[in-house]
């Protein structure tokens, strides 16, 4: 393709610009039209393009040109004259950057698998390409549109076992195929249904909407919904409109058409929605299909229906998918992902794609950055700093000074520690300041710690860091909490009692990846961030939601530690005891669950301890002997 200005990266939003030539009627010198007037479908197609973001009416700024000469069906064209008409287009230039749409190529007796109109360099969006005519990465393979898509109302039928295992519904099959199908039916009995054209229907019945088996009459396409698998055989052409009907019925297509390039195969993963069987192996089709697990069949049924809804059901869908594919080639770095193309909405909704997906155990040597959020508890803060500084893997300490009315103590008053200590003063007293991805954080691991968490031992912290290294995509922390479903109230409830389960760790003392700071600051859904800052509460719960939602994974609670602020305190210290506080935190969970549209938190029954914890083994030989039991 030529990279004219309309396809350059400078074009906003990485969208190619498509120009449509205005409609003209071409006649030969005896006044006979070169082709029929534009068809309903081609009109829809051009309308769809002109209504889309791709459209430009400025020919000088276009990347792609679409003629208004309708070549959808080669049967209705005069080939040579059409080529001449194309050559007249003002920017034709041997078809460079021109896009032709053709669904029914070839003609008798051989039926070529691509449009016979000489088209030179023009891109062809063709239905029925074979591997020999399809120019990979250049042409686009498109479906043959089934007019029944618009004419017939066929409500979706969910996946599951159906009356017939295998169905053939095509009418004018070659006798050779029909013989093979007949053999399958003879062998497997009623689970195979082979339909044919009805011979003795009364005149007023539309024969395209009926199929017959012996004297039994079936409604088409409704009958497709009665079958698990539906055969799609080649006819005169490789591309068959029945494929569209079959997908729509949620019947898994069994494509038997050697060398056929399936529609949109550049982006659609047909292995998830169809079974391709070589023509030679037609006799084995039944056993091949039987080896497919039931759950996979249901996945394929769902997938088939989704492909129809997204890419087959209307001319508009076909046109836009074609342009998107070309667009993705020109802007590959902005291309639509595999998941977006292929995952049905239910999968998109339920699935998780972890942004930190590579299994990686970061080296210990990088260490972690401790971030202490403080307001004015200087004495306690200094104690925390002193304690944390003893942890071998600490590489930097960052104090986030959240008090705008008071300056932090003079430099000389701060504890002297072996790692860099940096104080960041904030502009506003917001809880979210603790989760800002400060440039000063140069390590992957962050330890968030409150300025009153003085009970954690150096061994406990170092061990927490080691556990985080094994789970760098999780929250790894000390105070564990749980969310519960309150059946009486029909809502979520926050639980801080000692329970057998955890679903959150509080960020008063937790390790996590710096990436989550970035997510919290820039990608928190809805108004959660502002809400947290306004209420001065629940930033830790919000972080738990965020991480669980994006990774699909549970937190890791480390060590038995349950007291954090002072030895005398009850396990549930100060703030947390307050009833109103508890109510508010329950509110947070309910609020966040509704913003996220789901409850992402995962409940687990385990915590991480050092391998030799509580073992009858010399303490000095243990890596982490000083693990508090409370």
């Amino acid at each position, binding site marked *: 393709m030529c990279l004219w200005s309309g396809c350059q990266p400078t074009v906003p939003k990485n969208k190619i610009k498509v120009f449509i030539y205005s409609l003209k009627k071409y006649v030969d010198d005896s006044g006979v039209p070169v082709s029929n007037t534009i068809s309903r479908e081609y009109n829809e197609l051009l309308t769809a393009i002109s209504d889309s973001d791709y*459209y430009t009416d400025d020919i000088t700024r276009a990347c792609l040109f679409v003629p208004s000469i309708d070549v959808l069906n080669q049967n209705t064209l005069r080939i040579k004259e059409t080529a001449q008409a194309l050559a007249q287009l003002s920017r034709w230039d041997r078809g460079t950057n021109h896009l032709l749409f053709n669904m029914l190529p070839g003609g008798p007796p051989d039926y070529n698998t691509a449009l016979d109109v000489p088209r030179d360099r023009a891109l062809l969006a063709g239905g029925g390409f074979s591997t020999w005519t399809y120019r990979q990465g250049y042409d686009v393979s498109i479906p043959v549109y089934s007019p029944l898509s618009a004419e017939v109302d066929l409500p979706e039928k969910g996946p599951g076992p159906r009356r017939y295992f295998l169905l053939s519904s095509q009418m004018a099959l070659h006798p050779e195929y029909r013989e093979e199908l007949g053999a399958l039916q003879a062998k497997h009995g009623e689970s195979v249904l082979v339909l044919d054209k009805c011979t003795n229907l009364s005149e007023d019945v539309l024969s*395209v909407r009926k199929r017959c088996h012996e004297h039994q009459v079936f409604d088409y396409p409704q009958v497709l919904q009665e079958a698990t698998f539906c055969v799609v055989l080649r006819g005169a052409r490789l591309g068959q409109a029945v494929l569209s009907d079959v997908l729509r019925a949620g019947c898994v297509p069994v494509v038997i058409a050697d060398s056929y390039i399936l529609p949109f195969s550049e982006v659609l993963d047909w292995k998830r929605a169809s079974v391709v069987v070589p023509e030679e192996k037609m006799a084995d089709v039944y056993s091949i299909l039987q080896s497919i697990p039931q759950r996979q069949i249901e996945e394929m049924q769902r997938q088939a229906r989704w492909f129809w809804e997204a890419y087959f059901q209307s001319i508009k869908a076909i046109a836009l998918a074609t342009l998107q594919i070309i667009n993705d080639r020109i802007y590959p770095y902005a291309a639509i992902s*595999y998941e977006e193309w292929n995952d049905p909405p239910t999968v998109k909704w339920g699935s998780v794609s972890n942004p930190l997906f590579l299994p990686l155990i970061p080296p210990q040597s990088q260490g972690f950055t401790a971030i202490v959020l403080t307001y004015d508890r200087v004495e306690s803060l200094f104690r925390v700093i002193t304690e944390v500084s003893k942890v071998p893997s600490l590489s930097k300490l960052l104090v986030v000074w959240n008090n705008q009315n008071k300056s932090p103590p003079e430099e000389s008053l701060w504890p002297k520690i072996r790692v860099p200590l940096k104080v960041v003063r904030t502009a506003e007293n917001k809880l979210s300041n603790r989760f800002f991805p400060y440039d000063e954080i140069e390590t992957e691991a962050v330890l968030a710690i409150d300025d009153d968490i003085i009970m954690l031992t150096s061994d406990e912290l170092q061990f927490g860091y080691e556990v985080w290294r094994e789970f760098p995509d999780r929250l790894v922390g000390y105070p564990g909490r749980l969310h519960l479903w309150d059946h009486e109230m029909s809502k979520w409830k926050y639980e801080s009692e000692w329970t*057998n389960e955890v679903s959150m760790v509080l960020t008063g003392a937790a390790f996590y990846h710096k990436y989550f700071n970035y997510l919290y600051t820039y990608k928190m859904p809805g108004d959660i961030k502002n809400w947290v800052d306004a209420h001065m509460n629940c930033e830790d719960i919000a972080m738990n939601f965020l991480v669980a939602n994006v990774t699909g994974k549970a937190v890791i609670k480390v060590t038995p530690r349950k007291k954090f602020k002072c030895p005398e305190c009850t396990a549930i210290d100060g703030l947390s005891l307050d009833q109103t506080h508890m109510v508010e935190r329950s509110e947070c969970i309910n609020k966040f669950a509704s913003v996220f549209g789901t409850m992402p938190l995962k409940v687990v029954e385990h915590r991480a301890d050092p391998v030799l914890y509580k073992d009858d083994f010399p303490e000095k030989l243990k890596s982490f002997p000083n693990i508090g*039991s409370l």
Partner: protein
Amino acid sequence: MQAKKRYFILLSAGSCLALLFYFGGLQFRASRSRREEHSGRNGLHHPSPDHFWPRFPDALRPFVPWDQLENEDSIVHISPRQKRDANSSIYKGKKCRMESCFDFTLCKKNGFKVYVYPQQKGEKIAESYQNILAAIEGSRFYTSDPSQACLFVLSLDTLDRDQLSPQYVHNLRSKVQSLHLWNNGRNHLIFNLYSGTWPDYTEDVGFDIGQAMLAKASISTENFRPNFDVSIPLFSKDHPRTGGERGFLKFNTIPPLRKYMLVFKGKRYLTGIGSDTRNALYHVHNGEDVLLLTTCKHGKDWQKHKDSRCDRDNTEYEKYDYREMLHNATFCLVPRGRRLGSFRFLEALQAACVPVMLSNGWELPFSEVINWNQAAVIGDERLLLQIPSTIRSIHQDKILALRQQTQFLWEAYFSSVEKIVLTTLEIIQDRIFKHISRNSLIWNKHPGGLFVLPQYSSYLGDFPYYYANLGLKPPSKFTAVIHAVTPLVSQSQPVLKLLMAAAKSQYCAQIIVLWNCDKPLPAKHRWPATTVPVIVIEGESKVMSSRFLPYDNIVTDAVLSLDEDTVLSTTEVDFAFTVWQSFPERIVGYPARSHFWDNSKERWGYTSKWTNDYSMVLTGAAIYHKYYHYLYTHYLPASLKNMVDQLANCEDILMNFLVSAVTKLPPIKVTQKKQYKETMMGQTSRASRWADPDHFAQRQSCMNTFASWFGYMPLIHSQMRLDPVLFKDQVSILRKKYRDIERL
């Protein structure tokens, strides 16, 4: 002539042509066409502001008359069989496809078996090709019997077909033709890294390959026969045969930007093919974060062709260290060389430096299965000047993903010759058995196509790796598989206690006793009555590896693997299973062991001592996914499984190697329990293999044999174990769910 004359040529001659304009059936205005010429900005009206395209008031005819297709289909007389035969005789050479040039029937009987021609005396084979052949011969696809073979690989070195190269093999044409199995190349696979030579570097390999498939580096889209050839990466002669180095990415930095935005360091060609792109690189070089360094100093007579830039370029080139650049760059430019592919590609991939491809028309390696948009930026040589702004516009989240994907792909398919070869073979196998082949998700997600065998199941949910991608919950039940080797003589035997303990677990679906004892099966009534079914399978050959056979009787995805003398309570089983549900791709269990590098002996050591870390969880009491039975049986080579069977030892170590090689993660030990064997608890079990003094020495040597087959040490240490949340906490025992665990 007559016909030609009859039809008009529009506008060109201004002759008697008629051109009518259509708008909604009305004769409509010439202004439209004028607008086309005047670019529409000159105040001419749109038909309506929102819709350019006219709306037609009348119904248009459909594009296909209702009976056309049926009529056409029914008049086709050529039979499909004839059509297929015709295709396979027409489409040869450059038009070869699997359908026309490959004989599927050879693969029908024995499946996908690959034959390597015996090496002829006196034929020199370069190391790279030796490695390729060794990788095939060491794989599960290899057969030494040509009559069993589906695919044939030459022992003639075809890698370097550059006539000027010392590795070039002469007279290949006649040598190939004289092979009696050659059959005009049908079902043959030819590996090639270099083809053509100065000055035009054609892609011709210099002999008639007939109907053979090419696995070729630097192949152009134009010459590439889709779904027939395989594009492979260019790799150096130092590329390791097995194992391979890991990717350089050790951690994900946030923000994911490195010191340099874009780098390149390499030769500049002053003349000839491929020189254009590299000659233009200096335009983009900014000396700061975009470093594109070239040198003219290569070849014998570079000074003869030297241009005015050479001296300046050469000085700049010397200033920077290539490795330092690789490690510190976000993007690495991979421009074409003389040929389309270059070493820079794999170097960038390994270095987690996102490749920016600048090699128009290159069919990227394994493009049939790898979605390169997820790991590279495909640039256009014609748009070199826009590359910096393009990559600067890429969102940081995307960079983070691209970078991780480079590492996944590198380790899954590229880091060793063996991986490159196996990937090539698996791609071909997937084509032959289309209905049991991998989808794109399998190829492009961890752990990748080489570890996910589609023959196991076509349903992704049957593998432990895709629950999150599919939005599925991990399995809720397990099957206990008890490995029994001693006869059943008393009702107080540990195996019966164990069976009862497992059966009482709320997650237990069934129990399978694998009877690997020489004595006949005990009568049915000797087994205790349980609420779950107990199935006894008699091990056919009674060998160790049979405990990991993928028995059809195992109906659950989770397997609780048990030695007969294991001591485990129902609580422990329950707890371990709930933990496994969080880590379904790993081995989760009780007996932890560790490996270490023994410096004095320069070999791997094995220890069962109490240590602060562990890297194995033995399968005498462990839960893992049933798929690992399949992988153990079908992925591992016979040599390792035979070793295990002969020693009747190390099967558990091998399983740990396998699972860690797949997951790249350690197993998980649950709770404190260390004594899990009757023998360890002071009682004796005569047959216990643990009592054998050779046992330990054997395990050491197993470790080293396994590590050498894998080509590296896949085991990874963990320093933590998972306990119940309230384990040994000072709280009433009644509040604890897994209280029995603490009594032990």
